[in-house]
């Protein structure tokens, strides 16, 4: 039996060289320091010309360190003319086929430019490829990099806990709650290349489309990938809003423009989008109930209101606990609550913002920490009581606002 090869593929525009460098370095660092890895590796950087042109020195250094850099040619066009990240992914797929890497013993681990790996990530990948029973695997993503405790960062905590829902949904036939990732997923190269990333025009949810295609062609071949991946949240509320808008555009695009989507699956994806979109009306109804005094509505809704509220709070609490060993500077409880509410508000508004705006290729948010934030982060440690300790083990339990949406991308 051949030793599996894992192709670490970082697909990005490439305009954030510091994040990219940290990602590459994390891979090479842990490859050297993780014993008994059951795979060979290759490391591909697939970037756009504009990103490459910004920091050729960084790319040269990464190449010397062992990465293989692929710049998507400006004139490259897929058969269906897809754009954005899907185009770069399709280009990488073509390169794999060209050099004979599109075979069953090669696995592709997909990373965004800020997806750092740890020893656990590599150990999880090794276990997954040695097992070989599933063709695609995804795992839990944490967001400890450049953590500053801002509202958008606090909001990201809920995504990590929501990943447990994603893992369950993904491994069930039909993926009932539409869970998948655009990074930190592993797929066998021949499977990926047989399905491809090409689609008509701009596909803002290339990951969801890909998951739908794989499931349609290969069935429920998804498994849980052990080990975390480590990313960073949006640096500002504006970035958070743009990122969420892109997700919602992606879901809508998948529902409307994915001919390979079976009706049942189309309904579940549409329902996921609807449940996310219902957050804003729910808040408005609540406010109206208080202001206009039609409280009897709560007789109907109160049965489940407690459950939803609890679930939302639980996502923050457990998300924070998942990050407790990774976030060096925890924030105070009051600040945590306030920032959580602000971050949740952005998530509530985002789908409607998406409905009234058009998809754009510029919705990819910065991943290099702004210089001003960096200086601020270097200042004295903020606060104070670790949130985990403040809440204790028997804290409020519930599910977070992130569950309103998908965790895609």
């Amino acid at each position, binding site marked *: 039996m051949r030793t599996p090869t894992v192709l670490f593929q970082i697909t990005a525009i490439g305009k954030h060289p510091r994040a990219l460098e940290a990602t590459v370095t994390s891979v090479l*660092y842990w490859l050297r320091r993780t014993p008994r890895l059951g795979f060979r590796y290759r490391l591909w950087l697939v970037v756009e010309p504009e990103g490459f042109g910004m920091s050729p020195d960084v790319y040269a250094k990464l190449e010397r360190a062992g990465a293989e850099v692929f710049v998507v040619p400006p004139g490259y066009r897929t058969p269906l003319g897809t754009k954005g990240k899907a185009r770069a992914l399709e280009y990488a797929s073509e390169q794999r086929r060209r050099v004979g890497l599109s075979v069953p013993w090669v696995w592709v681990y997909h990373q965004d430019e800020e997806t750092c*790996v740890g020893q*656990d990530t590599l150990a999880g990948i*090794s276990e997954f490829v040695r097992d070989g029973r599933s063709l695609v695997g995804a795992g839990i993503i944490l967001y400890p990099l450049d953590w500053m405790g801002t509202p958008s960062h606090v909001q990201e905590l809920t995504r990590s806990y929501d990943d447990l*829902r994603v893992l369950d949904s993904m491994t069930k036939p039909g993926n009932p709650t539409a869970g998948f990732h655009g990074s930190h997923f592993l797929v066998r190269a021949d499977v990926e290349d047989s399905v491809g990333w090409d689609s008509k025009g701009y596909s803002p949810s290339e990951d969801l489309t890909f998951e739908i295609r794989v499931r349609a062609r290969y069935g429920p071949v998804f498994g*849980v990938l052990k080990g975390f991946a480590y990313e960073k949240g949006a640096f500002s509320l504006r970035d958070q809003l743009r990122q969420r808008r892109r997700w919602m555009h992606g879901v809508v695009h998948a529902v409307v423009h994915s001919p390979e989507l079976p009706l049942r699956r189309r309904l579940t994806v549409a329902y996921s989008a609807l449940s996310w979109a219902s957050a804003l009306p729910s808040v408005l109804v609540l406010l109206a109930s208080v202001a206009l*005094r039609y409280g009897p509505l*709560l007789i109907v809704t109160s049965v489940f209101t407690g459950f939803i509220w609890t679930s939302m709070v639980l996502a923050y609490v457990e998300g924070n606990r998942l990050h407790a*060993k990774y976030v060096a500077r925890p924030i105070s409880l009051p600040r945590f609550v306030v920032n959580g509410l602000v971050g949740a508000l952005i998530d509530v508004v985002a789908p409607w913002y998406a409905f009234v705006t058009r998809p754009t290729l510029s919705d990819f948010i910065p991943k290099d920490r702004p210089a001003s934030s960096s200086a601020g982060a270097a200042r004295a440690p903020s606060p104070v009581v670790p949130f985990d300790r403040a809440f204790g083990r028997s804290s409020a*339990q519930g599910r977070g606002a992130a569950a309103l949406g998908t965790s895609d991308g």
Partner: protein
Amino acid sequence: MSARGSASPDRPTPPRRKRAGLDEATSPRGSESRAQSDPGRSIEAGGADVTGAPTPRDGDLGDSVPRSDSDALVSTDSDVLREIELIQSELAGQRSGPTLGRPAAGAPSSTEPRGSDRDSGADPRWGKPSPYLDERLNVARTVAARLAQEADRVERSLSGLKEDLETIDRELGHASDELEFVRSNERAGDALDDELPTETRVSSPIPSLPPSGSFPDFTVARYNATVSALHGRRRSLGWGTVVMAVGISALLLILTLRANEPIPATWLAVLPLVWMVPVPFFLAAFRGTQRVLKENRLELREDS
């Protein structure tokens, strides 16, 4: 018929040293030793006489050369048999003539062209054939036949050995690839080490687990501690959620009933539906989270 002639040019080329040793071990020493112990009756010389082909020299890998060690043995045995047949036929012819027999003391040397002997028929220098010659020839024939059988057996063994050799060749090739791969990674890693801060150049997992947001601290131990704690909380998370949900809902219900507010207009009655939309999603998420924590121990082996 040199043993080295058995080296097949179309066989995958193994590492030289290993290959040479194995060739020596499996070469048909019998034929060589026979030739050396009976210099006056060299099989090679006989073979050359019979076939008329030049005797291959070291390194001469022409088509006339058998392509494997077993072929060489079989060919040698065939030569012996042919030689015996020739001698027998010659003797039979001489027995019918008056002058055929064993060479006397002044018999011509084996270097003299024997073709001329055959052409000339009976040689007066040959004496009367031994009365035991037939018997000896029969014994020789039997031995030669046994030798042929042995050669077959050796051939079969050699073919198995050949497969083993090919396996070794293949594995040596893989090992060579692995070595090259490891060396290249070492080089890449060395280059990387120059870029890393000193404190990150560690080769063992970090024993303590202070919170950290940089990748050198993202160890399996830290991961396992996190997911184990999550697993440990699974039941309390489940029951805690149910208790809290019931408590909050009950409180809201009580507050609503005690408020004694007027029932809203009918059109407002649809508003609860908005609230209900995400309920199935949240229920599925709750169940899924519990299920994944129950079914899938996320821990990794510490030594992996």
